[in-house]
């Protein structure tokens, strides 16, 4: 599946059964990112398939 990581402006390919596995594989802390699958922010339990369009946003806190 194709994944765009917003903070680093990188497109990568990876395989994972769900969002939790994907974040673990990418070594990303699940509390520091928001995962968008096909236009929707999802939870870590969300199952993934190869055609999903995924964007990983970093959580923004500054003001």
């Amino acid at each position, binding site marked *: 599946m194709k994944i765009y990581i917003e903070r680093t402006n990188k497109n990568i390919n990876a395989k994972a059964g769900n969002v939790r596995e994907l974040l673990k594989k990418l070594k990303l802390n699940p509390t520091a990112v928001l995962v*968008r699958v096909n236009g929707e922010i999802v939870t870590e339990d969300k199952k993934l398939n190869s055609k999903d369009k995924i964007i990983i946003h970093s959580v923004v806190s500054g003001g």
Partner: protein
Amino acid sequence: MRYLRQVIFEKIGKSKQKLLEESTAVIIGVGAIGSISAELLARAGVNLVVIDRDIVELNNLQRQKLFEEQDIGKSKAIIARERLNKINKDISVEAYASDLDYENIDSLAKGDIILDCTDNFETRFLINEYAVKKKIPWIYAAVIGSSGMIMNIVPGKTACFRCVFKEPTALLGTCDTEGILNTIPNVISAMQVTEAIKILTRQVYSKGLIYYDIWANKLIKSKVNKQNDCPVCNKKFEYLTGEKRSELVKYCGTNTYQIKNKNNLEELEKRFKNLGKVVKSDYYLNFDGIIIFKDRVLIKANSKKEAKSIFDRYLR
């Protein structure tokens, strides 16, 4: 007429302008986002409550538009009120140079809408619980680098903040680690205030999370969903009850640490006079760069440990 151009705009008109003039917006944090959002709302005719615990520093002037060089060392909230009163004398502006917490949120954050212009998640979780409990709409806004996010939270209508964001267990990027371009707060504030105007005039507002990167010119809108197991939606309030709070926090974009502490300013002034120069204002003491308010102390330090050490040396 002051608001003529806004009234001519088809989405506003006379009746909705009246709604704006009868409304009060609470601005929590008058930094980069807050100073711009406050100014836009003041010019639009909305009454304001501004809350900020911080003082103006030189490195704020790059992006925090209500402040000038002469304001360095003064309370952001108090200076903001002065400037906003000069911009529009027809609105009321209340200012609180306070650290918003579970004990004072009920008395300070009184308004028809809350604009989150803070720089930390602890305060956002507190605002979320308060807003959900009181059914007050609020708008999350945050910036870093060249990008930012906003999200409307309308209790009973949309997902709440806790449905979408988890309590961070890792350090998030901050303005001091990743920097900030001074153009992005203007865009995010403009989006936040536009949503506030829509909500206050009872019009259709944006649903979901909006991300914008001004350098890449990229806008991404995402749908968000209510979560059945969300503690806040299930009325479990941990921040509002004081169960979850930290006594020591580092301010975004600075090497300033805040330590919560009840301080007797008169006694401390006497103590510090024997040690060096003390500058006194109506709201705080400044002793050698240590700023002491009645409810907290601001200390410049290179680490949490050093901040605690300075605190223990002078204020224990």
